[in-house]
């Protein structure tokens, strides 16, 4: 058995373990036989552990053999040969996916262990870990995806688990409303992703990255698309990435997402989920660099988002929101780095930032105690001053800026006033007209409330 075959076998188990965990937990919940906390914890640790060991072993083999890319090809999920339609499940281990999957597994393992204690005897324990397993599987699929369809699969799993965990404390209305908000933004981003995926599929007859981005391993590939097509597809992908990473104008959901329990906030919005948009841009960087205009758009979006997040983050009054905007600032800078072509720098920045932010979010519940410890250690209060550039502004401008930052750029209210409310008003009117028409046609009067049968 060659080293390459070993790598493929190990790679297969890297993907299989999180998927098996998700299916197991889902099945047990479905048949009304949830696992006990102890057993669930063991399965979680075993799954993450085996997957991580396999991923590290693949990395070791790749380093030992000098291989820069290994494929795990699961074959066609759907194939219609006559019309050249293929839906391939394929995973790739390369310089981008291996660090990302190891990062995902390390952080999921850490936060999973933390969550086992944090949510001990919580009513939603099973629900949390079901979503967590879905997230883990989604991150593994997305990180290792060798085709755009596989990436989309992982992307969707991450999205659903995120929205459900934002609404984790679902006996209150605010987390639920925020969960729906996150879901709505994600779905619009997903629609853009799907459009891009289908467009790529349409252009090349398949979504295999090794065909789309050239035979050279990441980041050296060259996209086999014209500049115009790259601009169209890249724009869709940029919208998808902006939605997933909370870049402007989709930033409104990020602080709302902090309604979830601390472990999910840490892993989703501090560490992994929020970086998935940047990861997507890294994965499709050969497409981005086919068009200068597209790269400029990426840089501009990153800069605008970074500026906005830096300002909004400074005026937040709760630690999780402040950390969310701090995350967004760094993610935006990573996006700028991608747009400028510093791909390795962006990858290193992503990994470092994810680890640091996870730690910060996990420590968030003990922030006051940590501050006290630090202040005791240095013997004075910590500096909370504003940056000097703010002091140069006129007081009225400072106030306006403060207000704008406090209202998070009015993005939510602009979106509500210009899109959501008119939409609801318009279709509610149609609904009313339909009811009147149906009642008239059926010979009933117009006013009675609807009466259900059965």
């Amino acid at each position, binding site marked *: 058995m060659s080293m390459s075959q070993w790598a493929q076998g190990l790679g297969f188990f890297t993907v299989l373990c999180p998927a098996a965990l998700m299916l197991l937990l889902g099945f047990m919940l479905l048949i009304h036989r949830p696992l006990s906390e102890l057993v669930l914890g063991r399965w979680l640790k075993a799954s993450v552990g085996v997957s991580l060991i396999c991923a590290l072993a693949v990395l070791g083999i790749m380093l030992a053999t000098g291989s820069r890319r290994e494929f795990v090809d699961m074959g066609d999920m759907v194939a219609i040969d*006559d019309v050249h339609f293929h839906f391939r499940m394929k995973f790739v281990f390369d310089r981008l996916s291996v660090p990302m999957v190891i990062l995902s597994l390390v952080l999921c393992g850490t936060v999973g262990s933390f969550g086992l204690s944090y949510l001990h005897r919580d009513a939603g324990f099973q629900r949390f870990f079901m979503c967590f397993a879905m997230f883990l599987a989604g991150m593994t699929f997305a990180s290792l995806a060798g085709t755009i369809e596989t990436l989309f699969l992982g992307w969707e799993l991450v999205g659903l688990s995120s929205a459900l965990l934002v609404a984790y404390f*679902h006996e209150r209305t605010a987390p639920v409303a925020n969960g729906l908000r996150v879901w709505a933004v994600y779905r619009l981003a997903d629609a853009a992703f799907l459009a891009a995926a289908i467009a790529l599929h349409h252009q090349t007859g398949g979504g295999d990255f090794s065909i789309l981005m050239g035979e050279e391993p990441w980041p050296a590939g060259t996209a086999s698309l014209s500049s115009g097509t790259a601009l169209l597809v890249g724009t869709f992908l940029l919208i998808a990435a902006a939605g997933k990473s909370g870049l402007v104008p989709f930033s409104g959901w990020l602080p709302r997402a902090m309604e979830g329990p601390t472990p999910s906030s840490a892993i989703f919005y501090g560490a992994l989920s929020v970086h998935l948009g940047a990861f997507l841009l890294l994965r499709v960087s050969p497409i981005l660099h086919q068009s200068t205009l597209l790269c400029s758009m990426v840089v501009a979006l990153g800069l605008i988002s970074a500026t906005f997040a830096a300002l909004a983050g400074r005026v937040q009054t709760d630690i999780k929101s402040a950390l969310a905007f701090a995350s967004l600032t760094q993610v935006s800078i990573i996006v700028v780095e991608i747009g400028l072509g510093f791909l390795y720098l962006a990858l290193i920045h992503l990994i470092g930032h994810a680890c640091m932010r996870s730690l910060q979010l996990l420590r968030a519940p003990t922030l006051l105690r940590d501050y006290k410890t630090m202040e005791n250690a240095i013997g004075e209060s910590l500096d909370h001053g504003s940056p000097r550039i703010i002091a140069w502004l006129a007081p009225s401008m400072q106030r306006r800026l403060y207000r704008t930052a406090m209202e998070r750029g009015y993005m939510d209210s602009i979106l509500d006033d210009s899109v959501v409310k008119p939409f609801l008003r318009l279709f509610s009117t149609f609904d009313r007209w339909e009811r009147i028409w149906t009642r008239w046609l059926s010979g009933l009067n117009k006013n009675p409330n609807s009466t259900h049968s059965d």
Partner: protein
Amino acid sequence: MNELHLPWLELCILVPAVSSLWVGRIPDAAQARSAGLAVAGATLFLALAGWIDFESLFSFEAHDHWDVVKSLLGRDEFVIDKLNAPLLPLTALLFFLTMLATPRVKLGKYSFALALLSLSSTLAVLSCKETWLLIALVGVNAIPMYADLRTRKKPTRVFLFHIGLSLVLMVLGAVCYQWSTSDLGRGAGIAMLVAAVLIRSGCAPLHCWISDLFEHAAFGSALLFITPLVGAYATMRLILPIAPDWALRSIAIVSLATAFYASCMAIVQVDSRRFFCFLFLSHSALVLVGLETATPIGLTGALYIWFSVALSLTGLGLTLRCVEARTGPLALNRYHGMYSHMPHLAGSFLMTGLSAIGFPCTIGFTGTELLVEAALDISPWVGGVVVVSTALNSIAILRAYFRIFTGKTHQSTIELGSVRSERIAILTFAFLLIGVGLWPQPGVHSRYDAAVELLGHRDITEIVVPPEGAATH
């Protein structure tokens, strides 16, 4: 034409029809339910056996052994082919699971005899290819539904008006097409047939009969009347073989508009049944969108989505029905917080809903991919509208989930959890939705074969050019 080894089709149709007379005479509701379930189970077995028998023949089309109808009418009126072979067991399964998941509290109000009659007529429609008999059977198929409304003393005018109009247009269209000697007459015939199937499928703006039906009829009866997608079947049989491009485009444009409009309407609904109705309309319209492409891949997507819509939305409808049986009508403008009482039903709601919108690893995913791929061939806008409609539907589903199951903790002094029969139905749906989603190739292969054969039977050489002003791209 090849022959099946036994008269499976006729048995499928006759067994529930004859048994309905017996079940209707059983006074005790629980006994009627058991009898109805046994008959529906037997029908499911017969339909499955017919499918297996057909597959063993490796043929595109086959008819019954000892074909009584043929001996009476001289023609093969009931046939099984690649299009309807899996649809028959699917329909029988939907009826069986609906009966199985009928809560005890509804036994007195739900007529199992009418349900069996409806099963029989639906299977007859889905087994029929011949134009006139098919039109007649589509009419007969509405009778149990009408009887249900009459039994409940509910208004029937909206239902009668739309179904009647659809039938009249079908008859006139078929007459014009078959007996007209001029090109204009045949074109008018096709236009009337198109209008008829669009009404029967619930396409906007003549879709109100479906929302009216859900408001007034028994949820289970309404569900089983619409989820087998008889309108789409009529389109495949009556329109697709003869329709020129302009007719298919007209269907697709109206369906596309319906898909988008209904997905928007689903988001603003404050009534759970109307929410379900618009969700269904949006998804069923996508089946017709696939027709426009008239390409193997588009048609494969449409036929695959047919399965996905029937299974997912019946599952979703049944879940909603089970919740309503415990709570009464559900308003979606406030939170109900039912999760703690019925986590099983909450999971089922989410799973079936996500499957309907084409979430990865579920049955709907592959169909949506195929459909969008084919839609892009026609125009990026068509693909875009399909994608946006799906996104809006997914928002509507999660909104409804949150409103029904979360937002507060519902206080109840009695047990509201799902019972064993409901859990069996849910598990069956879960197995099919996720199992087929994880292993879609056999289904896609079967639907592709059906699509190729259907397109092979398209004969539009004699069809005239579209009349002036007909829908064009």
